[in-house]
């Protein structure tokens, strides 16, 4: 069914279609419309689920632990400082191997307090054991939420998964969305089952203390599962395409005009729309340029990226976050893994600063001349 909806509503509908049973939620701009829509569904009786009106994001993430271990598919959403308040619980959810799904309406973190978009909330949590998928459109929101459960709950993975959508520049944007039907979603995503759970008939202990003799093995298992997730994400994307006719590159990265490209921009989320528009314009002038959209930041798809960039003369990475004292995190990782390509790193769009067609043009120009004129797209 085609309908014009806000991306936040697309997220909420993805949650409803996934038959989520428990939603511990705490409002923070710009993720607020997600719990608002889910509340509408629950309070109007359209969605059979429990909303927990937690008193903080810390408790939202904590309630996910209990909700999942007691046997329910669960969801929350957050942004920015709320995400930061959850921080302690993020590696606990991943360390306990709980397939939580969270939408992050990306917003920068204070100070100065600022409600607008960049990726500094989720990017800062790149080491906390969560799968991170970055989306670009409302359609991708509904499709990806459903895929997130498919990926997180896969026995080869069992890792929490966050779907990151740009605050305001996507979360509050209305677009045409083709909604999948409930029956087909049910077939794609079977009802929630968890083998190890809180059950009085079969008592188990969760969250024990792990001493140095076992800790590293458990961390390695998480890393191995992250590696497994690369294939599982690709498969979810492929299987979803088969059922619903929508796909996003190979699931890990999406390529635009890359077949014969000499120069390319790599970015995440909504910047890619602007980059694609400029690339299309430059193509009409005979320039061989393209765009790589990184959909999966965790796990980091080294092989897909190597393949996509092997014939490039130059690659520019646009980071919407800076690891202060170092570089943009995506640039740093690309640069270490794709060492054979000439890579420029740019810091762009912090705290909601627009990334314009002019910015993109100047980056393509840098690539063509082989000289980086600036690092910050101010």
């Amino acid at each position, binding site marked *: 069914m085609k309908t014009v909806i806000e991306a936040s509503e697309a997220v909420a509908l993805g949650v409803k279609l996934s038959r989520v*049973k*428990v939603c*511990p939620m705490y409002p923070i701009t710009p993720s607020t419309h997600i719990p608002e829509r889910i509340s509408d569904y629950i309070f109007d009786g359209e969605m*059979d*689920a*429990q909303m*927990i*009106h*937690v*008193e*903080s994001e*810390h*408790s939202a993430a*904590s*309630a*996910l*632990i*209990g*909700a*999942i*271990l*007691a*046997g*329910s598919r*669960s969801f929350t959403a957050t942004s920015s400082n709320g995400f930061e308040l959850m921080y*302690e*619980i993020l590696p*606990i959810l991943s360390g*306990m191997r709980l397939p939580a799904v969270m939408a992050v309406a990306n917003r920068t973190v204070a100070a100065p307090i600022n409600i607008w978009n960049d990726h500094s909330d989720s990017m800062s949590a790149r080491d906390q054991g969560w799968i991170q998928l970055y989306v670009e459109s409302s359609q991708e929101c509904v499709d990806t939420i459903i895929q997130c459960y498919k990926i997180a709950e896969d026995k080869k993975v069992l890792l929490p998964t966050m779907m990151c959508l740009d605050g305001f520049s996507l979360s509050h944007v209305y677009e045409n969305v083709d909604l999948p039907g409930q029956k087909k979603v049910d077939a794609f995503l079977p009802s929630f089952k968890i083998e190890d759970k*809180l*059950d*009085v008939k079969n*008592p*188990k*202990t*969760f*969250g*024990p*203390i*792990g*001493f140095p003799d*076992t800790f590293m093995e458990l961390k390695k298992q998480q890393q191995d599962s992250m590696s497994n997730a690369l294939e599982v994400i690709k498969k979810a994307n492929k299987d979803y395409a088969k059922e619903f006719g929508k796909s996003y590159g190979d699931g890990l990265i999406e390529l635009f005009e890359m077949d014969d490209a000499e120069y390319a921009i790599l970015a995440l989320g909504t910047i890619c729309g602007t980059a694609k528009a400029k690339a299309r314009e430059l193509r009409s002038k005979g320039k061989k340029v393209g765009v790589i959209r990184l959909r999966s930041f965790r796990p980091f798809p080294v092989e897909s990226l190597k393949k996509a960039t092997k014939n490039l003369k130059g690659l520019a990475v646009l980071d919407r976050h800076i690891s202060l004292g170092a570089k943009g995190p995506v640039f740093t990782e690309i640069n270490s893994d794709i060492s054979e390509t000439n890579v420029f790193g740019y810091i762009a769009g912090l705290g909601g600063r627009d990334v314009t067609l002019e910015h993109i043009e100047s980056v393509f120009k840098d690539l063509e001349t082989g000289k980086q004129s600036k690092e910050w797209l101010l």
Partner: protein
Amino acid sequence: MKELKGLNYEEFFASGHRACAGCGEALAMRHIMKAAGPNTIVTQATGCMEVVSTPYPQSAWRVPWVHGAFENAAAIMSGIDASLKAQGKREGVNLIAIGGDGASFDIGFGALSGALERGHKFTYIATDNEAYMNTGVQRSGATFPFASTTTSPGGKKIHGKQEPKKPLPFIVAAHGIKYVASVTPANLLDLKKKVEKALATDHASFLHIYCVCPVGWHCKSDTAIELSKLAVQTRVFPLYEIEEGVLKFTQKVEKPKPVLEYLELQGRFKHLNEDEVQKIQDYVNARYDFLLSIEGKKAFDVLF
């Protein structure tokens, strides 16, 4: 040996855990679980009991048990309650969230308050040994006045903790819940009765359990029961219930022993001078007088 009728002889908090000799909190765990029985799910905050009972791959817990972090036992329990409800599996299961005084009075206070306000049906048990024992006896909001801890030492200039205990049970009662009670591990039948009453409450309920810590209190490891009894007899730890907003004593102390008898058994008070002992006596008297002033009255509004 005197037979204690009605106590469950089955153990759900098994022996072999790694608690210190004479730990009052481990004793509390054991008897809470005896009273709660097998159809119980426990969430526990980070702290001594979590550490001593679950050194992976061992566990002392014979009921489903989960630990997440220091300040979120009540929040995890909120998730469990909602999850079981969502599946139609909530009936017949006891939910108990346990935190020490650090987890309950201080760092997890917000999560506890939120869970109480939302009306989850669960019992929160604050095991109070009056300091952060697991991290090495640091001052908490529940530390007894003038007690020496590693961060409020009985110094040359400042003699221990200078502030009163946070009145957590009353703050909890002010959330409008139906059952709040204080208990010690010295009176097992009283403990059993209160745990059962708490679990039978149709919304949230709260127990404040006095737990002797020989290591933190610098008392002998065979004094947990003696001190538990003395705490009641000196009015340091009054035993009461607040049911439907009305406070009643479950053990009234008509002729209290002087607090000095309680203080002198514990090294954490050895730095006190006579003046300070008197101040503690006054503090204890005033707290008890307050309880007497609300005894039998509807002191707390009931919202659930």
